């Protein structure tokens, strides 16, 4: 046990010394790893900001069903009950003619012409039910329910349900865009992680290649696989830790600087203000995550890279 501890301390010390001795090579590896970790971190924070924007957008998506003026109270009650029983319906709210008119009047209090028009046409504004979907991508299931003949009979034939036509198409496009953005984010993170691992892997292989004679001597003297591999792993883990710290520092400056300097709260769907706030409030967990990713990339790459030089001849 004591021997193992002594060996572990020696491995860590040798890895640290090697790190300082190979600083130029280490700088190149850390630069690549730092860029990769920054991209990963940016993807996480930007992804969260996108999600926030998309959630806000999709929360505004709903379906308005305009009712026939002949619908009776029991029919309305049954219709609402059945509608709320649908799996994709989060909420279904009845708006009477009077409520809609009062709302329209309050929203357009300064527009006298419009108010006059509203009072003249108040008799033709139908009552409606506003349906909020659980999943904006599955509005079709609500449409299918509303298209049933028994329900069709309750709807106002003059005012079509608001998801149809151009509005339905817009809802579908937003829903589709949200999925594409999320999937693209995941793919980008995976692609950059793989690229980073390949570059780190080759950097360490280069370091090993430079020291292959040393490794073969260690082998002949009876050094165990981990006694030789350990310092390389420690060295790569140091790359990972420094790169992770640098990436968090860089992204902090990027979002804080953008939030202060751009004088705008958002760039399209990317809400810079929210991103900055998200980054600050999750700083420690993001730092921990970056450290874990950095250490993992470094350790896995170095273990794979050293494998070839540490194999024993089997034939």
């Amino acid at each position, binding site marked *: 046990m*004591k*021997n*193992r501890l*002594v*060996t572990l301390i*020696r491995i860590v010390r040798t890895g640290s010394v090697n790190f300082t*001795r190979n600083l130029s090579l280490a700088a190149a590896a850390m630069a690549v790893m730092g860029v990769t970790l920054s991209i990963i971190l940016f993807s996480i924070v930007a992804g969260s900001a996108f999600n926030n924007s998309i959630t806000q957008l999709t929360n505004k998506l709903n379906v308005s069903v305009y009712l026939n003026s002949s619908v009776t109270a029991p029919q309305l009650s049954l219709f609402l009950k059945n509608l709320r029983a649908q799996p994709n319906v989060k909420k279904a709210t009845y708006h009477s003619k009077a409520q809609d008119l009062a709302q329209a009047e309050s929203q357009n209090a300064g527009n006298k012409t419009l108010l006059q028009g509203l009072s003249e046409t108040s008799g033709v504004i139908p009552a409606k039910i506003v349906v909020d979907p659980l999943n904006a991508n599955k509005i079709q299931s609500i449409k299918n329910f509303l298209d049933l003949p028994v329900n069709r009979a309750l709807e106002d034939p003059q005012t079509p349900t608001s998801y149809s036509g151009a509005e339905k198409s817009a809802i579908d496009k937003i829903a589709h865009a949200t999925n594409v953005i999320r999937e693209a984010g995941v793919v980008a993170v995976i692609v950059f992680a793989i690229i980073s691992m390949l570059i780190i892997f080759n950097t360490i292989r280069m370091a090993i290649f430079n020291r292959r*004679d*040393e490794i073969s*001597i*260690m*082998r*002949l*003297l*009876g*050094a*165990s*696989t981990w*006694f030789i591999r350990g310092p390389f792993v420690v060295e790569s883990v140091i790359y990972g830790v420094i790169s992770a710290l640098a990436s968090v520092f860089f992204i902090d400056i990027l979002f804080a600087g953008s939030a202060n300097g751009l004088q705008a709260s958002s760039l399209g769907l990317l809400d810079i203000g929210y991103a900055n706030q998200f980054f600050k409030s999750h700083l420690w967990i993001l730092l921990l995550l970056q450290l874990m990713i950095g250490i993992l990339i470094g350790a896995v790459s170095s273990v794979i890279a050293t494998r070839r030089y540490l194999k*024993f*001849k*089997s*034939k």
Partner: protein
Amino acid sequence: MILLDRVTKTYNRDMGPALDRISLNVEPKEFVIVVGQSGAGKTTLLRLLTREERQTSGKIIVGGVDYDKLADKDIPLLRRKIGVVFQDFKLLPNRNVFENIAFALEIVGMGKHEIYRTVPKVLEIVNLTGKEKSMPMELSGGERQRVAIARAVVRQPKILIADEPTGNLDPKHAWDVIKVLEKINRFGTTVLLTTHNKEIVDKLKRRVVTIQDGKIIRDRANAAYKI
């Protein structure tokens, strides 16, 4: 101590065996010299003993370890029991004399204080006291080889394998190295030495095994150099 039974090593089927059904038995504390022309199979024999290569057929038992039953993970443990000296020294260039020797002890997890007690004793045996802080590049060929011997014996192995340790040395330094090997043998270590140096073989008057074309053609006690 070392037992080879009909051992064959073939690198390439088209070229014939590097070692062809050789059998050899070396007793504990023996000093055995292996001679032969370049390409005869001497180095292959030593590489089989250090398990750098694996025999194609036959049986090898060293210090009670049957190589057929040796798992890859146990190869480092085997090598810790065998001291090896190479013609090109194979010292770690970035470490000084003390650190090169200490490295062999670090591998086995020896503590710092014990290392500081052990290394000077071995430096004394190879007559290198005072050279602890010298880097390998600052030493003569003979001194480097004595550092390599010190590193090989510092763990007190039962067997010392020396692969042409005098090959790169002038006669005076070559003799210094041979004297150290004899001293180590007197302490009870089995020594297996390969060399081309006729003068050394003739003066030592030890058991001489001659290899030619991968076969042992002669095995004589107190013998002289003859190919």
